[in-house]
């Protein structure tokens, strides 16, 4: 009877722990203990402040202290009866610990610790060797091998960030081969289409075999998956009654095989009792031998335990891969966000003839909305707002590109021409698959506003407590239709006129019944804030939108840009005599 205690795989992604103690006591199961705190105390009884409690009368209450020093970790004898021996030498004063140091406690050979570290600086090969030492195979005792496999599982969790997956899988297979006494072993993993593909293959001599030359019996694999349990087949030729299906087996003259299907063990453990039996199939361990009946003596429980362990390793490594991938993406997104935020004009500067405030609130990490304000050499101020279709990284990329292109207006290009150029550019590269709506205005100190629009909702004009739209009717967005053309229009602003530029994330904000905030509500809110400072006006609109949507998650970017025209100045910048 095999007692199989499944230690739940640890997925410790915190980088802090890099050193461990391998605890080997003659009568205790071998275990790896992370040195989680410094100083780290070892002794009998946890009530004495010991982090590693060795409940053994041969151990003194205060036995060892491990503390951090510039060179690494330092071990000191705290009063162990009979002394502490590191690599056979008695510890008289403290010394720095190195990977693999053997620590004997007292005079008894049965009390033994090994120091394990996985510092970043050590080469991978070292660690691989270490891992294979850690689980070094001694043929013969399946139970022992299984314990070593458990150890490997723990080591997988501990060393995951440094070890290539292939070497973890190879070690796992080497164990499976030793446990079953097979000639070779393969780890098969399910690919995206659900087919089992050989991922790693190893020989009894611990040599890698080329996965593509492997030809596992699909018949036996299918059998194991259908029965959801390990299958031992002592004569494959008999099993493969279908000659065509059996072809691969005949070709290689293989006689016997063991297939252990691997299922997601987390789910099985965490699932309620009524959980359906079909767990997620991760893959299979396939072992075969040219000898006849080498597997007949195999204990089914050993095989099941092997399957559970191998599945944990596979599952664990997958989780790690996903986690690493997720972290990488998150990091890149946050870089994208930093870039985008850096491109939004920082600390909007007021100009002599206008006050400005703006906000961009993306609904995801990065967004497709943006606004910009920049002065032209002729004294006019460019104000622009843009909304790229879609959201997320794709939209943000195009928004950034547009921003760069439009900043070229400072070179004196005609806005309508720039719009036409950008439209052609994007349409010719149709695969970009995104378009944008935009409003671009140039505000002269004398109050003339020249503007070009591209499918963007009309900014609202607040003049003496009344709200109107700058324009009605449509215009072509940028990058949607090739033959589009754009024209510039002009209006005259009066002192204290306020222009509110916005994106449809404002008017299309939804409440929980999916009603839209709408233009009318926006206009009403604007009227209510006539005479307010721009900051107050902006926060008033934001809170009106928030109050409307209540708990509904923001589904689109929200961008506002408010511009107030002040009393006109003459060409040299002196304030004209003008009553306000």
């Amino acid at each position, binding site marked *: 009877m095999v007692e199989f205690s499944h230690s739940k795989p640890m997925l410790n992604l915190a980088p802090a722990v890099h050193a461990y103690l391998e605890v080997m006591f003659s009568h205790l199961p071998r275990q790896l203990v992370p040195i989680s705190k410094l100083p780290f105390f070892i002794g009998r009884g946890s009530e004495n402040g010991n982090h590693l409690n060795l409940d053994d009368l041969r151990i003194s209450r205060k036995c060892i202290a491990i503390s951090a020093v510039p060179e690494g970790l330092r071990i000191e004898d705290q009063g162990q009866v009979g002394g502490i021996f590191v690599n056979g030498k008695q510890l008289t004063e403290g010394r720095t610990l190195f990977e693999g140091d053997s620590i004997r406690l007292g005079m008894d050979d049965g009390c033994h610790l090994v120091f394990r570290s996985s510092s970043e600086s050590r080469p991978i090969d070292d660690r691989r060797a270490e891992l294979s030492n850690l689980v070094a195979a001694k043929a013969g005792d399946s139970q022992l091998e299984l314990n070593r496999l458990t150890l490997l599982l723990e080591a997988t969790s501990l060393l995951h960030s440094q070890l290539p997956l292939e070497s973890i899988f190879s070690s796992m297979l080497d164990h499976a081969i030793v446990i079953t006494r097979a000639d070779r072993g393969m780890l098969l993993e399910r690919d995206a289409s659900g087919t089992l593909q050989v991922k790693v293959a190893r020989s009894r001599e611990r040599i890698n075999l080329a996965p593509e030359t492997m030809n596992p019996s699909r018949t036996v694999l299918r059998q194991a998956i259908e029965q959801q349990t390990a299958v031992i087949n002592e004569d494959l030729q008999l099993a493969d009654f279908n000659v065509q299906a059996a072809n691969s087996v005949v070709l290689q003259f293989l006689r016997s095989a063991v297939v252990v299907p691997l299922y997601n063990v987390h789910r099985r453990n965490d699932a309620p009792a009524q959980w359906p039996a079909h767990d997620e199939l991760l893959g299979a361990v396939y072992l075969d031998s040219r000898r006849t009946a080498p597997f007949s003596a195999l204990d089914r429980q050993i095989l099941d335990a092997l399957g559970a362990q191998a599945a944990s390793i596979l599952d664990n490594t997958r989780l790690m891969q996903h986690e690493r991938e997720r972290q990488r993406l998150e990091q890149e997104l946050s870089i994208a966000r930093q870039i985008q935020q850096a491109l939004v004009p920082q600390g909007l500067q007021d100009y002599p003839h206008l006050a400005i405030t703006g906000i961009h609130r993306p609904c995801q990490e990065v967004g497709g909305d943006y606004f910009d304000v920049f002065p032209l050499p002729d004294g006019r101020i460019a104000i622009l707002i843009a909304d790229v279709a879609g959201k997320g990284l794709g939209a943000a990329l195009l928004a950034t590109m547009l921003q760069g292109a439009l900043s070229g207006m400072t070179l004196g290009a005609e806005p309508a021409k720039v719009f036409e150029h950008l439209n052609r550019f994007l349409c010719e590269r*149709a695969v970009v698959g995104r*378009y944008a709506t935009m409003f671009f205005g140039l505000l002269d100190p004398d109050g003339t506003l020249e503007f070009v629009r591209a*499918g963007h909702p009309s900014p609202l004009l607040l003049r003496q407590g009344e709200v109107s739209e700058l324009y009605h009717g*449509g215009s072509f967005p940028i990058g*949607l239709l090739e033959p589009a053309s754009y024209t510039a229009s002009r209006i005259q602003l009066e002192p204290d006129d306020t222009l509110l530029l916005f994106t*449809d994330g404002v008017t299309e904000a939804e409440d929980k019944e999916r009603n839209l905030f709408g233009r009318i509500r926006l206009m009403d809110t604007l009227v209510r804030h006539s005479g307010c400072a721009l900051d107050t006006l902006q926060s008033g609109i934001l809170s009106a939108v928030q109050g409307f949507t209540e708990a509904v998650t923001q589904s689109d970017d929200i961008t506002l840009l408010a511009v107030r025209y002040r009393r006109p100045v003459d060409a040299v910048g002196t304030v004209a005599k003008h009553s306000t």
Partner: protein
Amino acid sequence: MTLTTESMDGDITRVLLDGRLDIEGAAAIDLRMNVLSGSAKFLLIDLRNVSFLGSMGLRSIVVPAQAVRRRGGKVALFAPVPLVEEVIKASNIDQVIPVFHELETAVATLR
């Protein structure tokens, strides 16, 4: 978002869209709209059951429509609700793809 098609007399394919053409809705129909744009000669896009048209949704209509037109076909939009028609007009799309509220007129234009 659902998309169904029916064949009408005169080589017209009527595409009935139903639901919200937001980002998710657009993603749901994009592939089929692309297939249609490669095969249909006259396309009648029936929008009467589309309750919302977002910018990605607009793209899902305009890009296939342009593909049909490039192949010498014709496209018409039919019966958008006011909110949806507003989006179409704000983008000037109605200048390129005509919008109809009467089926007979739409069909007559396509033939």
